[in-house]
């Protein structure tokens, strides 16, 4: 059964149109003109219990607005949604018990309190049984290495420490669903890795459903199989990350280091993408040619010291969809 279900979800914001100049400001005191803008336009998707879904889109695409509706703090203009069997904004408090939220840009810990006391407060808020609380805290503190700064007031923590604290705080009450909004933003590699490890573990061990919005596609590659791409308030792709890679990543690149100084490099079926000294990059369509064939052609024609094969990175694919829009059969990479 789907744990999250949205149908034709729509959210329109109304804002005052500001007319320019002093006279405009005066006129606004008496009559106001409003402008309506749909931040989310007909968003339909469902998420199964235990899934990890990457919810991606460029800035202003409607990601945060969707998340806010799912958490119950925004009322949709139209359409319907259900999270764990309830309509979030109608039963905000009950929904609050089912979810955990991490905003990368904003800590939800209590600023003046030591981390440990923040956790105790959360225990009271979510009514976590004492032994469960101890177990969770022990477990989280092992994975996230919290023990060192448990007694430090949150305002004195580094960003990486704070985020680890935020993750533990969001999962302390065993929520069914966690929403992660840009969870690794601004973190160093080590902290990012710790956080990704933690998300993965929670999903595997507890079956926690995870909705992840991020601009860091490494998060997505590491954690999710399924992604939902949203642009201008509309879902433009919902499916496997691998399929997207398959459809859009029609090319591979061979990087070869030549051992002799060849005047000209040309391999049938490939395009010379670049050449810097003895390092050449050759692109080919992997639906038309097998890697073996291409590599053999290179080896037959040239003497080389090194060779490697590159897959297109997801970053480039997503960028291309944002600019060109998604179609199931994308135009071929020009070759």
């Amino acid at each position: 059964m789907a744990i999250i279900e949205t149908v034709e979800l729509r959210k329109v914001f109304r804002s005052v149109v500001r007319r320019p100049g002093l006279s405009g400001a005066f006129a606004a005191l008496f009559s106001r003109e409003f402008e309506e803008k749909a931040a989310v336009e007909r968003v339909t998707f469902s998420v199964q219990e235990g899934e990890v879904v990457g919810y991606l889109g460029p800035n202003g695409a409607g990601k945060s607005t969707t998340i806010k509706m799912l958490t119950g703090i925004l009322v949709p203009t139209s359409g319907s949604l259900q999270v764990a069997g309830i309509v979030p904004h109608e039963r905000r408090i009950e929904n609050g018990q089912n979810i955990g939220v991490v905003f990368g840009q904003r800590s939800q810990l209590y600023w003046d309190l030591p981390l440990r006391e923040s956790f105790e407060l959360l225990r009271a808020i979510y009514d976590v049984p004492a032994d469960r609380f101890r177990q969770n805290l022990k477990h989280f503190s092992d994975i996230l290495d919290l023990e060192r700064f448990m007694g430090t007031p949150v305002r004195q923590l580094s960003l990486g420490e704070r985020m680890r604290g935020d993750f533990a705080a969001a999962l302390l009450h065993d929520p069914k669903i966690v929403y992660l909004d840009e969870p690794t933003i601004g973190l160093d590699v080590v902290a990012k890795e710790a956080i990704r490890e933690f998300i993965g573990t929670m999903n595997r061990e507890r079956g926690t459903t995870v909705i992840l919005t991020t601009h860091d596609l490494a998060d997505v590659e590491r954690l999710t199989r399924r992604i939902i791409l949203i642009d201008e308030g509309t879902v433009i792709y919902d499916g496997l990350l691998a399929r997207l890679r398959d459809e859009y990543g029609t090319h591979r690149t061979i990087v070869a280091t030549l051992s002799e100084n060849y005047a000209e490099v040309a391999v049938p079926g490939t395009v010379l993408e670049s050449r810097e000294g003895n390092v050449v990059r050759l692109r080919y369509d992997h639906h038309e040619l097998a890697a073996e064939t291409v590599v053999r052609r290179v080896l037959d024609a040239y003497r080389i010291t090194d060779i490697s094969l590159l897959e297109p990175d997801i970053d480039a694919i997503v960028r291309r969809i944002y600019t060109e829009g998604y179609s199931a059969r994308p135009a071929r990479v020009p070759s």
Partner: protein
Amino acid sequence: MIADRAVRRFRFAPYLEFGKKAIAREATYRFDVFTSIGSFALRMYLLRMVWTALYARNAAPRDLPLHAILTYSAVALLMGLVLDVDQVSSLYTKLHDGSIVSDFLRPINVPLYFFADGTGEVLFHAALVVPSLAIALVLVHIDVPSPGTGAAFALSLVLGYFVGFTINFILNASAFWTLEIHAVQLIVTWLTDLLGGELVPLVLFPVALQHALFALPFAAMFSTPLLIYVGEIPPERYAAALGLQALWLAVLGAVCVVMWRAGSRRIVVQGG
């Protein structure tokens, strides 16, 4: 807000914890503790000087002899330690920086959270009354009221605290609409100081002005409990005085409810 109407088993524990954490939080600001006790001592000393000098040159007005007005000032300053605390300022801060959203994500009643947090903050400040009282007793003589008067004073003080809470709540909640509240706050502080009887007993003002001032909610915070304490409000008028405080509390409480509904609706509609 709409979402809060869900029928659900109410748990007291989180709010108790909010209160406790607020006390712990306030205790971390040690400098604040020393400055508020220091400023109390200074103001007590100055008021003693002013009133003593004034009374030396003029006849005591009506039935407020020097010891009564010094008692009034001392008790007013002690009350100020508690009542002058803006215990809802975190609402303003959270509306301003948008972190109020985090509170709406938790399974709690949000206004009740602010009440619990604010009360914890105030309780910490109430503890400062003890050392301050010791300082006051060194500087001035404080009259002790009869048990009946003392009880009426205590009741009136509690009502005054709640009236103060609602005023602060309204001020801070206005940040739902205007993001700047400091100017209004300054005016209100000045009004409670001067027109609410914190600094000067309202019975010293011209009679016509007194009537107007007694009708304002600011008098319900300081003036009513204080005038009960020094005997300016006699026992036969206790019911009326407490009744007026209760009436203000009901009116301001209703304003809080309406503001909260409209304000939180703004958040859930516009997204903060």
